[in-house]
């Protein structure tokens, strides 16, 4: 029957001719192929010594950002938790007391901010939802742990370390 796609190939099973039964030409051809691979460039990346560069828009561990004065940007509005499709983010809000103006930028801040890294799918929606530019997924890979509870990252792991903005600008200009 005529095949509709015209791509049908009928396999012919002829007995091998003398040349083919000698094996040797076919073996020589095979040897040629393997020796070509012997000298080919090897695509393996020798991992611990060599690392593949990350993509620029790689999404890794979250970090809670500080503003130029070193104050936490997060105002505990809860939009990130709301936007999270995996429901990985929880927080408890608190009101800023007098004397804490150097620590928190807004009058309301997150006293507890937890992300369950087992639930997180690193989609980046929290980053998009944040009105204060307080959360970014710009960290490294989230590492493995032995216990499930260790995957719940609190503020101790999430808030970026304090920095001196003047020194950073100076370093950059140098």
């Amino acid at each position: 029957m005529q095949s509709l796609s015209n791509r049908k190939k009928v396999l012919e099973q002829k007995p091998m001719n003398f040349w083919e039964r000698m094996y040797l030409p076919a073996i020589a051809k095979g040897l040629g192929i393997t020796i070509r691979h012997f000298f080919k460039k090897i695509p393996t990346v020798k991992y611990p010594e060599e690392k593949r560069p990350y993509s620029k828009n790689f999404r890794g561990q979250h970090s809670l950002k500080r503003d130029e004065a070193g104050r936490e940007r997060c105002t505990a509005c809860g939009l990130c938790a709301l936007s999270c499709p995996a429901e990985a983010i929880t927080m408890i809000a608190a009101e800023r007391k007098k004397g804490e103006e150097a620590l928190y930028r807004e009058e309301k801040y997150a006293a507890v901010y937890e992300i369950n890294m087992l639930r997180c799918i690193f989609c980046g929606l929290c980053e998009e939802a944040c009105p204060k530019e307080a959360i970014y997924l710009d960290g490294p890979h989230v590492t493995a742990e032995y216990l499930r509870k260790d995957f719940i990252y609190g503020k101790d792991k999430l808030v970026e370390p304090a920095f001196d903005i003047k020194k950073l600008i100076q370093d950059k200009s140098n």
Partner: protein
Amino acid sequence: MEGAFILEKLILVVIVFTVSLVIAMYSTLAERKIAGFMQDRYGPNRAGFGGLLQPLCDGGKFFFKEEIIPAGAHRSLFILGPTLAIITACISSAVIPWGQTLDINGRQITLQVADINVGVLYIFGVVALGVYGIMLGGWASNNKFSLLGAIRAASQSISYEIGMGLSIIALLMVTQTLSMSEIVAQQSGFVNWNIWVQPLGFLIFMTCAFAECNRVPFDLPECETELVGGYHTEYSSMKLGLYMFSEYINMFVSSALMAALYFGGYNFPFMHDLGLSPNWITILGVVAFFIKIFGFIFFFMWIRWTLPRFRYDQLMNLGWKMLIPLAIANIVLTGIITIVKDTYFA
């Protein structure tokens, strides 16, 4: 037999033994490296520089593994199997001439352990013994896969020994001698190599050597896909290691044999035109011999990572219906050519 002679031979034996063990050890690494490169990856490269300590790690691991002798196995034969395999593998290198004579303070030292006048027959005898190690091990294991592997090994080895012997007869018709040292000495220079007069014989010999070493594409005795592990299914620890080791030593010895019988052994091109002292020629000859041997070992591995395994009936067809008739034709052809040459071109 004076003492110095015995000492000299003893030192040579120790050197040959050590060298063949070391080469067998590093063949395992070479095999994995070559496999890697042919499959577009690096093989083992963690232990030592470029993986050079890998064989030591493997050996150490073998020694520390638990040794299991199955309850139903025949204990003494089970132990005898790998012992026999490794002993026969080691003793076959005794008649291979590694080089010409070294002149040390007037003493002529021949670089050959035993220059017996039936060297080729000795090798055949020892190689034929080699299959007993596999057979005994497979049979004593009390395991059907082992037994099947052993049976395959036995029948394969018998079938291919015939082809091998017949291909050697044609060579002996040319060389007129069974002594290994004379066969190699006849091939001095480059044009006298036996490969030029016996190309077909060499091809048959090489194919049979592959089969005798149980190498791919003739590794049906172990054949993981069908027989679990073949004759060494029940073996563990260093006993398994010895089987592996004997396979690699066999490969080394057959490479040496092919190099000596067909590729001029320690002879290398322009050896008489260099104007060097005999000692230097001898040393260079040993180097040339080992280069040839390594070339053949590489070829063994190259074939392994190129060809798939034969089916058992294909193996038997190739052995009995192709190699043996070809070898006989080769003998007849060699005979005719020799007579024509002697009658008309003498």
